[in-house]
Protein backbone atom coordinates (compact mmCIF):
# COMPACT_ATOMS: atom_id res chain seq x y z
CA UNK A 1 0.00 0.00 0.00
CA UNK A 2 1.91 2.99 -1.25
CA UNK A 3 0.85 6.56 -1.18
CA UNK A 4 -1.49 7.23 -3.92
CA UNK A 5 0.06 9.07 -6.77
CA UNK A 6 3.81 8.89 -6.95
CA UNK A 7 6.62 6.49 -7.38
CA UNK A 8 5.60 4.49 -10.35
CA UNK A 9 7.70 1.56 -11.33
CA UNK A 10 9.68 3.40 -13.94
CA UNK A 11 10.71 6.10 -11.50
CA UNK A 12 13.46 5.97 -8.99
CA UNK A 13 12.46 5.12 -5.49
CA UNK A 14 15.38 5.42 -3.18
CA UNK A 15 15.62 3.09 -0.28
CA UNK A 16 18.12 1.93 2.25
CA UNK A 17 18.61 -1.30 4.07
CA UNK A 18 20.30 -1.61 7.42
CA UNK A 19 21.63 -5.04 8.18
CA UNK A 20 21.53 -5.37 11.93
CA UNK A 21 23.44 -8.59 11.61
CA UNK A 22 26.37 -6.64 10.26
CA UNK A 23 26.28 -3.44 12.28
CA UNK A 24 28.94 -3.37 14.94
CA UNK A 25 28.15 0.09 16.24
CA UNK A 26 31.52 1.61 15.31
CA UNK A 27 30.06 5.02 14.56
CA UNK A 28 31.89 5.71 11.29
CA UNK A 29 28.59 6.50 9.63
CA UNK A 30 27.79 9.06 12.30
CA UNK A 31 30.91 11.08 11.67
CA UNK A 32 30.73 10.55 7.92
CA UNK A 33 27.28 12.08 8.02
CA UNK A 34 28.50 15.03 10.03
CA UNK A 35 31.34 15.59 7.62
CA UNK A 36 29.22 15.33 4.51
CA UNK A 37 26.27 17.39 5.57
CA UNK A 38 27.88 20.33 7.36
CA UNK A 39 26.34 19.30 10.63
CA UNK A 40 27.65 21.51 13.38
CA UNK A 41 28.91 20.02 16.57
CA UNK A 42 27.01 21.42 19.48
CA UNK A 43 29.56 21.46 22.24
CA UNK A 44 29.44 20.52 25.86
CA UNK A 45 26.84 23.00 27.04
CA UNK A 46 24.22 21.98 24.52
CA UNK A 47 24.93 18.32 25.04
CA UNK A 48 24.35 18.85 28.71
CA UNK A 49 20.93 20.19 27.86
CA UNK A 50 20.19 16.93 26.10
CA UNK A 51 20.54 18.20 22.58
CA UNK A 52 22.23 16.42 19.78
CA UNK A 53 22.50 16.85 16.09
CA UNK A 54 23.18 13.38 14.81
CA UNK A 55 21.20 12.92 11.63
CA UNK A 56 22.24 9.35 11.90
CA UNK A 57 22.55 8.00 15.37
CA UNK A 58 23.31 4.50 16.54
CA UNK A 59 20.79 3.59 19.16
CA UNK A 60 22.11 1.31 21.82
CA UNK A 61 19.91 -0.93 23.92
CA UNK A 62 21.11 -3.10 26.75
CA UNK A 63 19.16 -6.26 27.47
CA UNK A 64 19.53 -8.68 30.32
CA UNK A 65 21.95 -8.75 33.16
CA UNK A 66 25.39 -10.19 33.70
CA UNK A 67 26.47 -12.60 32.34
CA UNK A 68 23.64 -13.03 29.83
CA UNK A 69 23.72 -9.48 28.69
CA UNK A 70 23.28 -8.22 25.16
CA UNK A 71 24.07 -4.81 23.79
CA UNK A 72 22.14 -3.98 20.65
CA UNK A 73 22.89 -1.40 18.02
CA UNK A 74 20.23 0.12 15.86
CA UNK A 75 21.33 2.75 13.36
CA UNK A 76 18.56 5.29 13.13
CA UNK A 77 18.21 7.90 10.48
CA UNK A 78 15.29 9.56 8.73
CA UNK A 79 13.19 6.69 7.46
CA UNK A 80 11.90 8.62 4.45
CA UNK A 81 8.44 7.26 5.00
CA UNK A 82 6.08 7.02 2.07
CA UNK A 83 3.29 8.31 4.23
CA UNK A 84 5.38 10.43 6.48
CA UNK A 85 3.63 11.81 9.54
CA UNK A 86 6.00 14.75 9.67
CA UNK A 87 4.99 16.06 6.28
CA UNK A 88 1.32 16.67 6.68
CA UNK A 89 1.67 18.62 9.90
CA UNK A 90 4.07 21.21 8.55
CA UNK A 91 2.08 24.40 8.10
CA UNK A 92 4.28 25.71 5.30
CA UNK A 93 5.08 22.65 3.19
CA UNK A 94 8.67 22.82 4.34
CA UNK A 95 8.77 19.07 4.21
CA UNK A 96 7.15 16.99 1.56
CA UNK A 97 7.43 13.74 -0.31
CA UNK A 98 9.15 14.05 -3.66
CA UNK A 99 8.50 11.74 -6.52
CA UNK A 100 11.54 9.63 -5.79
CA UNK A 101 10.36 8.63 -2.36
CA UNK A 102 12.49 11.12 -0.50
CA UNK A 103 11.17 13.03 2.41
CA UNK A 104 12.57 16.41 1.48
CA UNK A 105 13.20 19.11 4.01
CA UNK A 106 13.27 22.57 2.45
CA UNK A 107 15.39 24.49 4.91
CA UNK A 108 14.67 27.97 3.63
CA UNK A 109 10.95 27.41 3.89
CA UNK A 110 11.04 26.20 7.46
CA UNK A 111 9.53 28.45 10.08
CA UNK A 112 10.48 26.36 13.06
CA UNK A 113 7.19 25.28 14.59
CA UNK A 114 8.86 21.91 15.30
CA UNK A 115 5.55 20.12 14.80
CA UNK A 116 7.19 17.67 12.42
CA UNK A 117 9.60 16.65 15.14
CA UNK A 118 6.71 15.91 17.43
CA UNK A 119 5.00 13.72 14.93
CA UNK A 120 8.02 11.69 13.97
CA UNK A 121 7.79 8.34 15.75
CA UNK A 122 11.46 7.72 15.05
CA UNK A 123 12.57 11.04 16.59
CA UNK A 124 15.03 11.63 13.80
CA UNK A 125 14.39 15.28 13.21
CA UNK A 126 16.76 17.78 14.67
CA UNK A 127 16.45 21.44 15.34
CA UNK A 128 19.00 24.21 15.07
CA UNK A 129 18.71 25.70 18.51
CA UNK A 130 21.51 28.13 17.71
CA UNK A 131 23.26 29.29 14.59
CA UNK A 132 25.86 26.77 13.51
CA UNK A 133 29.25 27.62 14.80
CA UNK A 134 31.77 27.30 12.00
CA UNK A 135 34.49 29.75 12.73
CA UNK A 136 37.67 30.61 10.89
CA UNK A 137 39.54 27.68 9.47
CA UNK A 138 36.69 25.26 10.11
CA UNK A 139 34.79 26.85 7.25
CA UNK A 140 37.22 25.13 4.92
CA UNK A 141 35.69 21.77 5.63
CA UNK A 142 32.17 22.77 4.68
CA UNK A 143 30.67 20.87 1.81
CA UNK A 144 29.70 23.39 -0.88
CA UNK A 145 26.83 21.19 -2.05
CA UNK A 146 24.94 21.40 1.22
CA UNK A 147 23.53 24.62 2.54
CA UNK A 148 24.16 25.75 6.06
CA UNK A 149 21.12 25.87 8.25
CA UNK A 150 20.59 28.92 10.35
CA UNK A 151 19.04 28.85 13.76
CA UNK A 152 15.40 27.96 14.01
CA UNK A 153 15.37 25.38 11.25
CA UNK A 154 14.49 21.73 11.38
CA UNK A 155 16.80 19.38 9.63
CA UNK A 156 17.28 15.70 9.18
CA UNK A 157 18.90 13.03 7.11
CA UNK A 158 18.37 13.69 3.40
CA UNK A 159 19.73 10.39 2.09
CA UNK A 160 22.54 12.71 0.93
CA UNK A 161 20.27 14.27 -1.59
CA UNK A 162 23.13 16.21 -3.12
CA UNK A 163 24.77 12.94 -4.05
CA UNK A 164 21.57 11.59 -5.53
CA UNK A 165 21.18 14.68 -7.61
CA UNK A 166 24.74 14.58 -8.80
CA UNK A 167 24.52 10.88 -9.54
CA UNK A 168 21.42 11.44 -11.62
CA UNK A 169 23.03 14.38 -13.39
CA UNK A 170 26.08 12.37 -14.26
CA UNK A 171 23.93 9.55 -15.51
CA UNK A 172 21.85 11.96 -17.54
CA UNK A 173 25.00 13.45 -19.06
CA UNK A 174 25.98 10.02 -20.19
CA UNK A 175 22.44 9.36 -21.37
CA UNK A 176 21.75 6.38 -19.15
CA UNK A 177 19.89 5.34 -16.09
CA UNK A 178 21.56 5.42 -12.73
CA UNK A 179 23.36 2.16 -12.10
CA UNK A 180 23.06 0.34 -8.86
CA UNK A 181 25.86 1.54 -6.62
CA UNK A 182 26.39 4.82 -8.47
CA UNK A 183 24.84 6.73 -5.65
CA UNK A 184 25.87 6.14 -2.10
CA UNK A 185 25.08 8.37 0.83
CA UNK A 186 28.05 9.16 3.02
CA UNK A 187 27.07 6.64 5.67
CA UNK A 188 26.61 3.83 3.18
CA UNK A 189 29.87 4.61 1.50
CA UNK A 190 31.84 4.54 4.70
CA UNK A 191 30.21 1.67 6.58
CA UNK A 192 33.13 -0.71 7.22
CA UNK A 193 30.99 -3.77 7.77
CA UNK A 194 28.71 -3.08 4.84
CA UNK A 195 25.67 -2.99 7.04
CA UNK A 196 24.12 -0.21 5.02
CA UNK A 197 22.96 -0.50 1.44
CA UNK A 198 21.35 2.13 -0.71
CA UNK A 199 19.72 2.08 -4.08
CA UNK A 200 16.67 2.18 -6.24
CA UNK A 201 14.10 -0.21 -4.86
CA UNK A 202 12.02 -0.05 -8.03
CA UNK A 203 14.89 -1.70 -9.84
CA UNK A 204 14.38 -5.32 -8.99
CA UNK A 205 17.96 -6.18 -9.72
CA UNK A 206 19.43 -3.70 -7.28
CA UNK A 207 21.03 -5.01 -4.14
CA UNK A 208 18.80 -2.94 -1.95
CA UNK A 209 15.72 -4.30 -3.62
CA UNK A 210 16.86 -7.86 -3.15
CA UNK A 211 17.65 -7.25 0.50
CA UNK A 212 14.44 -5.40 1.13
CA UNK A 213 12.48 -8.27 -0.27
CA UNK A 214 14.41 -10.88 1.63
CA UNK A 215 12.68 -12.56 4.51
CA UNK A 216 14.65 -10.65 7.07
CA UNK A 217 13.49 -7.20 6.09
CA UNK A 218 11.15 -5.38 8.41
CA UNK A 219 10.24 -1.77 8.95
CA UNK A 220 10.47 -0.09 12.30
CA UNK A 221 7.14 0.73 13.92
CA UNK A 222 5.41 -0.98 11.09
CA UNK A 223 2.14 -0.74 12.95
CA UNK A 224 2.20 3.03 12.56
CA UNK A 225 1.66 2.69 8.86
CA UNK A 226 4.40 5.07 7.86
CA UNK A 227 5.85 2.80 5.16
CA UNK A 228 9.48 3.71 5.67
CA UNK A 229 12.01 3.59 2.87
CA UNK A 230 14.56 2.28 5.32
CA UNK A 231 14.27 -1.42 5.85
CA UNK A 232 15.97 -3.15 8.70
CA UNK A 233 17.27 -6.63 8.20
CA UNK A 234 16.72 -8.55 11.37
CA UNK A 235 19.70 -9.92 13.15
CA UNK A 236 22.40 -9.45 15.71
CA UNK A 237 22.03 -12.67 17.57
CA UNK A 238 21.69 -16.30 16.73
CA UNK A 239 22.01 -19.30 18.94
CA UNK A 240 25.57 -20.45 18.88
CA UNK A 241 25.43 -23.18 21.43
Amino acid at each position, binding site marked *: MKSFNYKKHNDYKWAMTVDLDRCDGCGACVVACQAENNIPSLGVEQTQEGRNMLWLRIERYIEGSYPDVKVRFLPMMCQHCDTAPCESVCPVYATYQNNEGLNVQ*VYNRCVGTRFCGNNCPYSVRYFNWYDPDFEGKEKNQLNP*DVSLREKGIMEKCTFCMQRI*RRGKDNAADEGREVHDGDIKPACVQTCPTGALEFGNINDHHSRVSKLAHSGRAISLFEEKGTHPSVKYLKGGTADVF
Partner: protein
Amino acid sequence: MVKFGSLSTTAKVVLGFIGTAIATFLVLFYIFYEGPFYLVAHQPTQPINYSHKVHADDNKIPCQYCHTFARRSEMSGVPGAARCMNCHESVKQEAPEIKKVIAHYENNKPIEWVKVFDLPDHVWFSHKKHIAKDVSCQTCHGPIEKMDVVSRTNDFQMGFCLDCHQENEAPTDCWTCHT
Protein backbone atom coordinates in the same frame (compact mmCIF):
# COMPACT_ATOMS: atom_id res chain seq x y z
CA MET B 1 -27.77 69.24 20.00
CA VAL B 2 -24.93 67.03 21.05
CA LYS B 3 -22.02 66.43 18.84
CA PHE B 4 -20.61 62.99 19.23
CA GLY B 5 -17.79 63.32 16.78
CA SER B 6 -15.75 65.41 19.13
CA LEU B 7 -12.49 63.98 17.98
CA SER B 8 -9.81 66.21 19.39
CA THR B 9 -6.73 67.15 17.47
CA THR B 10 -4.68 64.82 19.60
CA ALA B 11 -6.96 61.92 18.90
CA LYS B 12 -6.87 62.69 15.19
CA VAL B 13 -3.11 62.87 15.22
CA VAL B 14 -2.85 59.62 17.11
CA LEU B 15 -5.35 57.90 14.85
CA GLY B 16 -3.67 59.32 11.79
CA PHE B 17 -0.32 58.17 13.03
CA ILE B 18 -1.57 54.67 13.68
CA GLY B 19 -3.19 54.57 10.27
CA THR B 20 -0.10 55.83 8.55
CA ALA B 21 2.06 53.39 10.44
CA ILE B 22 -0.13 50.49 9.40
CA ALA B 23 -0.19 51.68 5.82
CA THR B 24 3.57 52.16 5.80
CA PHE B 25 4.10 48.78 7.27
CA LEU B 26 1.88 47.20 4.68
CA VAL B 27 3.69 48.97 1.87
CA LEU B 28 7.08 48.08 3.26
CA PHE B 29 5.96 44.55 3.85
CA TYR B 30 4.80 44.33 0.28
CA ILE B 31 8.11 45.69 -0.95
CA PHE B 32 10.03 43.35 1.28
CA TYR B 33 7.81 40.52 0.30
CA GLU B 34 7.93 41.02 -3.39
CA GLY B 35 11.53 41.93 -3.04
CA PRO B 36 12.19 44.36 -5.88
CA PHE B 37 14.61 46.15 -3.63
CA TYR B 38 17.00 43.25 -3.80
CA LEU B 39 17.89 44.59 -7.15
CA VAL B 40 20.47 46.87 -5.66
CA ALA B 41 22.84 47.96 -8.35
CA HIS B 42 25.84 45.82 -7.66
CA GLN B 43 28.69 47.04 -9.74
CA PRO B 44 31.84 46.35 -7.80
CA THR B 45 35.29 47.45 -8.78
CA GLN B 46 37.27 44.54 -10.07
CA PRO B 47 41.00 44.09 -9.57
CA ILE B 48 41.48 44.10 -13.32
CA ASN B 49 39.50 46.55 -15.37
CA TYR B 50 38.15 43.88 -17.65
CA SER B 51 35.55 44.72 -20.25
CA HIS B 52 33.07 42.15 -21.47
CA LYS B 53 32.11 44.58 -24.20
CA VAL B 54 35.57 44.61 -25.72
CA HIS B 55 35.93 40.86 -25.59
CA ALA B 56 32.47 39.49 -26.20
CA ASP B 57 30.89 42.18 -28.35
CA ASP B 58 33.71 43.92 -30.22
CA ASN B 59 35.87 40.86 -30.68
CA LYS B 60 33.08 38.30 -30.64
CA ILE B 61 34.81 35.87 -28.34
CA PRO B 62 32.24 33.25 -27.33
CA CYS B 63 31.37 33.22 -23.64
CA GLN B 64 32.45 29.65 -23.19
CA TYR B 65 35.88 30.27 -24.54
CA CYS B 66 36.77 31.74 -21.18
CA HIS B 67 34.03 30.35 -18.95
CA THR B 68 35.06 26.86 -19.83
CA PHE B 69 33.36 25.02 -17.07
CA ALA B 70 29.91 26.32 -17.84
CA ARG B 71 28.78 23.54 -20.11
CA ARG B 72 30.14 20.68 -18.06
CA SER B 73 29.90 21.91 -14.53
CA GLU B 74 27.68 23.66 -12.07
CA MET B 75 30.03 26.62 -11.96
CA SER B 76 30.67 28.72 -15.01
CA GLY B 77 34.29 28.87 -14.01
CA VAL B 78 35.96 32.23 -13.87
CA PRO B 79 39.02 31.83 -16.08
CA GLY B 80 42.46 31.75 -14.56
CA ALA B 81 45.22 34.08 -15.66
CA ALA B 82 46.59 31.31 -17.86
CA ARG B 83 43.44 31.52 -19.98
CA CYS B 84 44.00 35.25 -20.50
CA MET B 85 47.53 34.57 -21.53
CA ASN B 86 46.36 32.30 -24.36
CA CYS B 87 45.66 35.42 -26.36
CA HIS B 88 47.53 38.07 -24.51
CA GLU B 89 50.81 36.38 -25.02
CA SER B 90 50.66 37.95 -28.42
CA VAL B 91 48.00 40.64 -28.11
CA LYS B 92 48.23 44.03 -26.42
CA GLN B 93 51.03 43.13 -24.09
CA GLU B 94 51.79 46.75 -23.36
CA ALA B 95 48.39 47.79 -22.01
CA PRO B 96 48.52 48.61 -18.28
CA GLU B 97 45.69 46.25 -17.33
CA ILE B 98 47.23 43.41 -19.28
CA LYS B 99 50.49 44.03 -17.48
CA LYS B 100 48.69 43.37 -14.23
CA VAL B 101 47.42 40.08 -15.61
CA ILE B 102 50.90 39.14 -16.75
CA ALA B 103 52.22 39.95 -13.30
CA HIS B 104 49.66 37.64 -11.74
CA TYR B 105 50.50 34.93 -14.23
CA GLU B 106 54.20 35.18 -13.70
CA ASN B 107 54.01 35.27 -9.93
CA ASN B 108 51.50 32.40 -9.95
CA LYS B 109 49.20 34.56 -7.90
CA PRO B 110 45.49 34.18 -8.54
CA ILE B 111 43.40 37.20 -9.43
CA GLU B 112 40.77 37.85 -6.79
CA TRP B 113 37.69 38.73 -8.79
CA VAL B 114 34.70 40.11 -6.98
CA LYS B 115 31.57 38.06 -7.41
CA VAL B 116 28.75 39.97 -9.07
CA PHE B 117 26.07 37.37 -9.59
CA ASP B 118 25.61 35.57 -6.35
CA LEU B 119 22.92 33.18 -5.26
CA PRO B 120 22.09 32.55 -1.64
CA ASP B 121 23.54 29.56 0.10
CA HIS B 122 20.30 27.63 0.05
CA VAL B 123 20.00 27.67 -3.73
CA TRP B 124 21.69 25.09 -5.89
CA PHE B 125 22.22 26.16 -9.46
CA SER B 126 23.86 24.27 -12.28
CA HIS B 127 25.18 26.08 -15.34
CA LYS B 128 25.59 22.77 -17.07
CA LYS B 129 21.91 21.93 -16.98
CA HIS B 130 20.82 25.31 -18.26
CA ILE B 131 23.32 25.46 -21.07
CA ALA B 132 22.32 21.98 -22.11
CA LYS B 133 18.78 23.32 -22.54
CA ASP B 134 20.06 26.26 -24.62
CA VAL B 135 19.22 28.91 -22.09
CA SER B 136 21.21 31.91 -23.22
CA CYS B 137 23.59 33.57 -20.80
CA GLN B 138 21.69 36.82 -21.19
CA THR B 139 18.52 35.33 -19.73
CA CYS B 140 19.99 35.62 -16.29
CA HIS B 141 23.03 37.80 -16.70
CA GLY B 142 21.41 40.51 -18.79
CA PRO B 143 23.11 42.18 -21.72
CA ILE B 144 26.49 41.33 -20.32
CA GLU B 145 28.24 41.58 -23.65
CA LYS B 146 27.38 45.26 -23.73
CA MET B 147 28.83 46.01 -20.33
CA ASP B 148 32.18 47.58 -19.81
CA VAL B 149 31.86 47.02 -16.12
CA VAL B 150 29.64 44.16 -15.07
CA SER B 151 26.68 45.01 -12.92
CA ARG B 152 23.95 42.83 -11.61
CA THR B 153 20.79 43.10 -13.66
CA ASN B 154 18.63 40.64 -11.87
CA ASP B 155 17.46 40.22 -8.33
CA PHE B 156 17.37 36.42 -8.63
CA GLN B 157 14.28 36.11 -6.53
CA MET B 158 12.56 32.78 -6.54
CA GLY B 159 9.78 34.12 -8.71
CA PHE B 160 12.28 34.82 -11.47
CA CYS B 161 13.49 31.24 -11.51
CA LEU B 162 10.00 29.88 -11.16
CA ASP B 163 8.53 31.84 -14.06
CA CYS B 164 11.10 30.51 -16.44
CA HIS B 165 10.85 26.99 -15.09
CA GLN B 166 7.10 26.96 -15.51
CA GLU B 167 7.28 28.44 -18.95
CA ASN B 168 9.71 25.78 -20.11
CA GLU B 169 8.17 22.96 -18.13
CA ALA B 170 11.33 22.48 -16.16
CA PRO B 171 10.93 20.71 -12.83
CA THR B 172 9.53 22.86 -10.06
CA ASP B 173 10.01 20.33 -7.34
CA CYS B 174 11.54 22.09 -4.32
CA TRP B 175 14.58 19.87 -4.19
CA THR B 176 15.49 20.79 -7.77
CA CYS B 177 17.11 23.89 -6.34
CA HIS B 178 17.08 23.62 -2.57
CA THR B 179 19.28 21.19 -0.73
